[in-house]
């Protein structure tokens, strides 16, 4: 059981990044997007609509604090005073609890807009696999949401589910994807997608003498199936892009893509920041149109 592990395998490494080619001092407009999700928080700083810096960390049990930490972490090493920020939008679960935000917009709108930025304007279907929900979003050429679906009262096929699983198998979450392919042949996917029962099932498989990697493979494909039912319900239109933490999990994504017979779009950006990017871009647009904060 998770609680007995000394190491917390589900913990992914927190990160921050700063664009070396940009001097914020030269920027006309500085905008910020802060995404306080149920599991992770990101802050994105943009200078004139360019991605200048971001941070990605775990959400604590207090959202204002998490927002604050994310922003500080994002501004770390930039010497940018917070007063320089022209406009800030909060999004995600804790969006209304972001103290420095001028307004809030839902993660659905922000992820569509963010995906449009980091993947390019061709994107029409965005799959965001977040901590506790899974969204399939259809958007137009401007990154505006046309319609969307979210998973119902069930966390099967969410980032959180994968974390619980990584813990159970004592496999660092970042290795899950890789290791799920280190199997002689693709095993049957676990029948139960319920996080709790998949755990029971996996335990049973291990007791039956399955290899850990085989169990990982089985769970990854079960999760892929689960996510597919959601995107099939909304209908897949090319181009197809994936945001959120799970986008980093080859184990699920490649199985999912194989099943729906599509190539996912590629990006070098951290897919977890899509929401915050969208929020920062909305901020930028508002300031440009003079809708920004009265100074």
């Amino acid at each position, binding site marked *: 059981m998770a609680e007995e592990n000394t190491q917390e395998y589900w913990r992914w490494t927190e990160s921050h990044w700063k664009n070396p080619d940009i001097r914020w001092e030269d920027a006309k407009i500085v905008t910020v997007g802060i995404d306080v999700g149920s599991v992770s928080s990101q802050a994105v700083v943009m200078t004139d609509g360019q991605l200048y810096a971001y941070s990605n960390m775990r959400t604590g049990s207090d959202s204002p604090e998490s927002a604050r930490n994310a922003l500080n972490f994002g501004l770390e090493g930039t010497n940018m005073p917070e007063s320089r920020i022209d406009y800030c939008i909060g999004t995600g679960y804790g969006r209304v609890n972001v103290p420095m935000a001028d307004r809030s917009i839902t993660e659905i709108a922000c992820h569509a807009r963010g995906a449009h930025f980091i993947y390019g304007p061709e994107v029409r279907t965005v799959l965001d696999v977040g901590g506790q929900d899974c969204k399939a979003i259809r958007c137009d050429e401007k990154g505006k949401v046309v319609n969307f679906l979210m998973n119902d009262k069930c966390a099967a096929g969410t980032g959180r589910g994968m974390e619980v699983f990584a813990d159970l198998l004592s496999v660092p979450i970042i290795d899950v994807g890789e290791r799920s392919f280190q199997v002689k042949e693709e095993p049957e996917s676990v029948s139960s997608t319920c996080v709790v029962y998949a755990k029971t099932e996996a335990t049973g498989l291990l007791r039956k003498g399955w290899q850990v990697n085989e169990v990982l493979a089985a769970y990854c494909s079960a999760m892929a199936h689960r996510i597919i039912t959601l995107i*099939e319900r909304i209908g897949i239109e090319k181009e197809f892009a994936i945001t959120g933490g799970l986008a980093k999990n080859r184990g699920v994504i490649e199985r999912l893509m194989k099943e729906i017979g599509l190539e996912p779009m590629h990006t070098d950006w951290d897919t977890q920041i899509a929401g915050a990017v969208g929020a920062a871009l909305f901020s930028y647009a508002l300031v440009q149109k003079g809708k920004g904060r009265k100074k």
Partner: protein
Amino acid sequence: MAQYPTEPLKCWPKAKELRNKFYENYKQAHEKGGIRCMGSAWALDAVTMGLGRDVYWITGEPYGASCAFDSPLSADFLTAAENFGFSRDLCSYMRNYWGSIIVGKYAFGGPLPKADFAYTQHICCSHGKWYQNACELEGGDVPLYVIDVGVGACPPFEPEMYKHRVKYVADQMLDSIEWMEKITGRTYNDELFFEACWNDMRLTHTWAKICMLNRAVPAPLDEKSIYSLYVFAALQKSSAAFAEFYEELLEEVEDRVKRGIAAVENEQARVMTDTQPPWGFLKIYRYLETWGLVSIGSLYTFGLEGMWVYDEDRNDLRPRPMPPEKPKSREEACRMLADWHLSKPEYQHFYSPEYKTEMMDAIAKNWRCDAIIMHYNRGCEGLSVGIAENRLGLLERGNKVMTYEGNMGDETEFDLPSTETRFDIFLESLGLKKQEA
């Protein structure tokens, strides 16, 4: 361990042949210049027979069950229905049926033949909606007629079978006849209707007589076989061929009883069940046999397609006697058929669970059951109505009752290992011993 002689039913080959022919006929209806009709297994199909001997039926419930037998196919159908926007908790026969239309596949090979019209009845929330949506999914050009039979319980559960209730159902039948003439352009033949009407009553009467024979120890029929036999009443009650088949079956089963032929050679104890089984997992009946258990049937297999009279004073069921003579007028035939069907045991629980509890208790006592195993069927709202009250009522009446959850037509809602564990716990508490094979 064997203590009784057993042997397979002689009529098996004929049963298989009749069933296959039925589904073939529906496919080839148009080549024969005939008419295709879709509707519920509960529908009053006899009324459509006045259009001619070449009206070929498909009934949604048995068809949905046939889909459920083929799990990959069923999975496709259920997914298609869900992707269209239908909720996963709707009737699983219905979802298989809609899925079959959406995917365009016939469970018996080839594309799904399109019905010329739909003719059904409405007792549960879904019956009318089922074919309303089926017609829409078929392109919106399939005409639909639904007969509402939700008029309340029959005696002894109501003071009387009020005339106006029978009339309401009969009048809808009369209206449907004019409607059918309009949409098919055929002239309606009352003689054929009277004949079909009589076949319906003959068949459902005979089925009840066959079920009566299962009171014998050892039971000549086990429920797994009963499922494959009772289905004819679900396919087409008005079929002369099916009515004759039941009469032959009746003779064979009488003979088995005379000769003490058992369905389960090691019959130690007897149970009855409730509601449709999880069709993809009929092996649970074989599992029960390893405990020396025979399932003698259920209110579902006895009372959905068999016609009975419930005797309150003796707490017993007996086959409802046939009317003295065949109907002579269209009105009389409609009234007769309405009155006959409104006494269907499986209609009564829709008005109060107590009625069903009493009839189930009567079966448990008179068919000498040691226990009752109830399937809490997530797939059928109609037969699960009041089922929890039935359980309480049967316990009160001193029966041993066990329940398990599942779904008749969606295998993702059935868990075989945990169900077998339940059986073990329950049967052990009855003092039975598992017999090592």
